[in-house]
């Protein structure tokens, strides 16, 4: 495979990117034209990705999913792209969230074409990010994915959008430049060890960087990834962004942009810099635990529904990180499984937030109540998503959370207990939110809301089913990520061995 055009991953990236370009030039005067075009294009992107996903899983022409292409031969710079099951799953999820975000954002009027274009550019950038197999390509897509989010927030956000977008951009700019510095430091050391300028993940693993170098690189690279997660104490951009953004943008941000931080941590930090992770793990696990408790308490305190969901998500990511620090393939696979589940539940929740917002301008928790009677479909999906987020049995969130806690309690008892306390608080907060929004009969709404329409039901229902089935058959679905986590751990062992 020696060209981009024969590569399926490149095609997936290009389809979304070109769709974004097309949408940008669609005149927004006709309100329905950008919306309809975006919807059909998002379906096309999803179908293409689904076909690619099926091809990959069936093992059909595997050479179409990997490529090493010379970029600047004079400088030995090459582009490495490839995929594995976990990456493919994330690519599929990003494509699945696209039609959902388009449907939820149907009320976007101002520069609607540009808005939808940003969603497509974000999906395209994340597809590239999940396909990257070398540090330069990864950095390129990492940076590229920041721009659509910046515009989505700054242009279409609420009243505090400028400060939210500014904070997001400044945080990401600083951490990204540290990331770039880290890449150069890695490359310099790989060159010192091998005599070649190599950036591919495999080459860095094979080079066997020293523990000191890995620790230094961890300090340079980790801030970027922790920031995106979002990780306490640099999580404030996330809650601010979620609060200001349109729900359609939130679906993409919370559903797939944020999980890309976990992906980056797994693929770069865990595999390339295991010594750095081991050095910092004893301290980081306590930070993870503190983050769980802090975010759970914040989830109780915030008045807006979207912000509550954001904090409830921010409880789960430190928990996932805690599992990644355990270095056990079982725990890693459980955390990846949980991340996929979290991604879906957050997408569903923000889609429902969007549905509420389209009917009522400010979805504050204090203004919502007793929606079960007027919005039965909404209530069903809302309950399912919140239960999954909370980790109620039979939901996909439970399966991942159960496996994670059983393992981390044996490895880090004190941080695990603290994280458990945070998760328990979040659990109660979830139940309280569900009760307040759906069943609190003391609140009387000024006007009854109409239930979800057919488009909303059709777009949310498949994702809601995805929240249920993995909870009922966890073994089948966890196999999808177990394979990758075993490979990840074996690569990590190889990296340690080389050192």
């Amino acid at each position, binding site marked *: 495979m020696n060209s981009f055009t024969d590569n399926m991953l490149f095609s997936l990236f290009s389809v979304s990117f070109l769709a974004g370009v097309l949408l940008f030039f669609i005149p927004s005067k006709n309100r329905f034209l950008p919306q309809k075009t975006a919807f059909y294009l998002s379906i096309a992107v999803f179908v293409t990705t689904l076909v690619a996903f099926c091809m990959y899983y069936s093992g059909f022409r595997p050479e179409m999913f990997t490529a090493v292409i010379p970029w*600047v031969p004079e400088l030995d710079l090459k582009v490495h792209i490839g995929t594995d099951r976990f990456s493919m799953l994330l690519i599929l999820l990003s494509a699945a969230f696209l039609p959902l975000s388009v449907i939820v954002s149907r009320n976007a*009027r101002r520069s609607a074409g540009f808005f939808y274009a940003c969603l497509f550019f974000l999906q395209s950038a994340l597809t590239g990010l999940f396909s990257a197999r070398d540090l330069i390509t990864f950095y*390129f*897509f990492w940076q590229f994915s920041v721009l659509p989010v910046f515009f989505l927030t*700054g*242009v279409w956000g609420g009243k505090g959008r400028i400060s939210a977008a500014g904070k997001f951009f400044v945080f990401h700019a600083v951490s990204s430049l540290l990331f770039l510095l880290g890449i150069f430091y890695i490359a310099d050391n790989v060159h010192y060890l091998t005599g070649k300028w190599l950036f591919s993940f495999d080459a860095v693993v094979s080079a066997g960087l020293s523990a000191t170098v890995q620790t230094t690189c961890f300090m340079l690279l980790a801030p970027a990834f922790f920031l995106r997660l979002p990780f306490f104490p640099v999580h404030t951009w996330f809650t601010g962004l979620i609060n200001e953004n349109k729900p359609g943008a939130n679906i993409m941000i919370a559903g797939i942009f944020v999980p890309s931080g976990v992906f980056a941590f797994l693929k770069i930090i865990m595999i390339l810099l295991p010594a750095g992770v081991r050095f910092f793990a004893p301290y980081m696990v306590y930070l993870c635990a503190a983050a769980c408790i802090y975010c759970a308490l914040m989830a109780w305190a915030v008045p807006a529904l979207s912000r509550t969901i954001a904090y409830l998500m921010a409880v789960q990511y430190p928990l996932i990180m805690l599992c990644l620090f355990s270095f056990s393939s079982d725990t890693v696979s459980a955390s990846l499984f949980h991340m996929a589940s979290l991604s879906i539940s957050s997408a569903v929740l923000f889609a429902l937030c969007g549905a509420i917002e389209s009917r009522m301008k400010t979805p504050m928790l204090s203004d919502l109540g007793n929606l079960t009677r007027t919005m039965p479909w909404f209530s069903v999906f809302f309950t399912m998503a919140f239960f999954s987020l909370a980790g109620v049995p039979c939901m996909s969130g439970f399966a991942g959370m159960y496996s994670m806690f059983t393992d981390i309690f044996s490895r880090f008892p004190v941080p695990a207990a603290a994280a458990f306390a945070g998760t328990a608080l979040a659990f109660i907060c979830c139940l309280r939110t569900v009760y307040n929004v759906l069943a609190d009969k003391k609140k009387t709404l000024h006007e009854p809301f109409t239930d979800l329409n057919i488009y909303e039901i059709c777009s949310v229902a498949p994702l809601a089913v995805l929240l249920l089935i993995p909870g009922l058959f966890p073994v089948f679905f966890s196999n999808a990520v177990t394979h990758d986590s075993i490979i990840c751990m074996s690569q990590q062992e190889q990296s340690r061995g080389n050192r």
Partner: protein
Amino acid sequence: METVNISAMIAVSPVFLILSAIFVLCAGIIKPLRGAECYAALLASLVALVFMRFPATEISLFGGLAVINGATALVWYVLLTALAGSIFVSMSYRLQHPGTYYFLMFVSAAASMLVAAADNLIFAFAASETALLPLYFLTACRRGRQGIRAAYRFSVSGILFAALSMVGLAFLNYSCPSLSFTELSKSGLPGGLALVGFILFLSGFTFKLAALPFNFVFRDVFSGAPGAVAAYMASAWTLSGLPVLYKIYSLFYSGPVHNFFPTVAVLTVAAGSLSAFYSQDLRKTGTGLLCAGIGFCLLSFSGEKGGEIALLYHIPALAASAAGLFLFSLYFEKEEIAIPMSGLSGFADRHPVVALSAAVCLFSAAGLPPLGGFFAKFIILFTLLRNGHFMLAMTGIFCLLFSVLCSLKLISYVFFSNAAESADGAVSTYPEQKSLKSGRNEVSPAVNLSIFLLAVFLSVYGIFSKYFLGKISAFF
């Protein structure tokens, strides 16, 4: 034989430009051609551009005073494109003496082409001064008192540094038998008078590049000059000096002259980025970003062979982004007023395509993906790393941060400000917008088209960087 003939056509370009200059100057006195100077100028610049070819072999001009190779041809392409673009944009200007205006532009462009091809220090100096002289007049041609003040500062400092260069050349001429680069490289490391000569010459010549400390002069010059002239100067004239400086850098592998460049480069990048970051004026921000970009070009010198590729890849990206930013400023151009960034509020609501195109130029100048500027800066930093200049690369990265943050400021004004209330409905007009709108000059469609084309170029240049880098690598 035929290939050589076609390649040799490139050598005709400066002569063709001079002839065109004379033609447009005389067009004013030929009755049927009166008023058509701009079309004649545009046609001539396009013809020069269309007939440009990359030479198959190195072509020597004027008895070895100038040499044209692939790298020179690339710079010439950039120059001619900038010239054609500036003429295209200037067509909307109501000029008192259009013939003179286009004459000056052609002369400056032709001389800048010779600067880029110069293989001799005296020739480089003479061409550089010839290119500079018309720009003093062009700076003042349209913008009243502000333009005249800018031209005055420009000419005074230009003459001062020309004098410095001339003294340097005199010293060099006294110490070295010949001032051609081939001979200079044979004469070994300069010492004593020759060293003083080099330092003086370089001090004067870096003025042309708006390198530190001259970036502060250029802040005023670019603020005062008409938009089209500022765009031309930023994208063509300043960059045409880079090949000469690279040749001087390549003369020696150590010593003070060699070490002069990384030092100036780092200071220029830092000063440019910081100045862009702190400026509250669109033109000054553009100048700061241009200065930072030129600093990156100077940094690429330390990247040796890879650095050459990086430099040549960076030049078109930098030219396009700088031109885009200065053309964008035309939207806010009004005599005697600065262009405060607060005046950009809500611009994207009125001109979404132009706003996004300007954003593309800005992001490219700041080094954000997937644009040409990102790849150019990345390759420059990588070649520095390859050659063991880790600290230089690190400094470049830290300075990039300020450029990136500067883009945040500008984008916030263009896209985000004053749009809160109109987020869900029709665009609302604010008193501030109204006053700016009423006080602003009408912008011709040529400006829209130019900015859009520049943005498309920067995107294509970045996305298909592999193709362009392959073409550039073929020069070596």
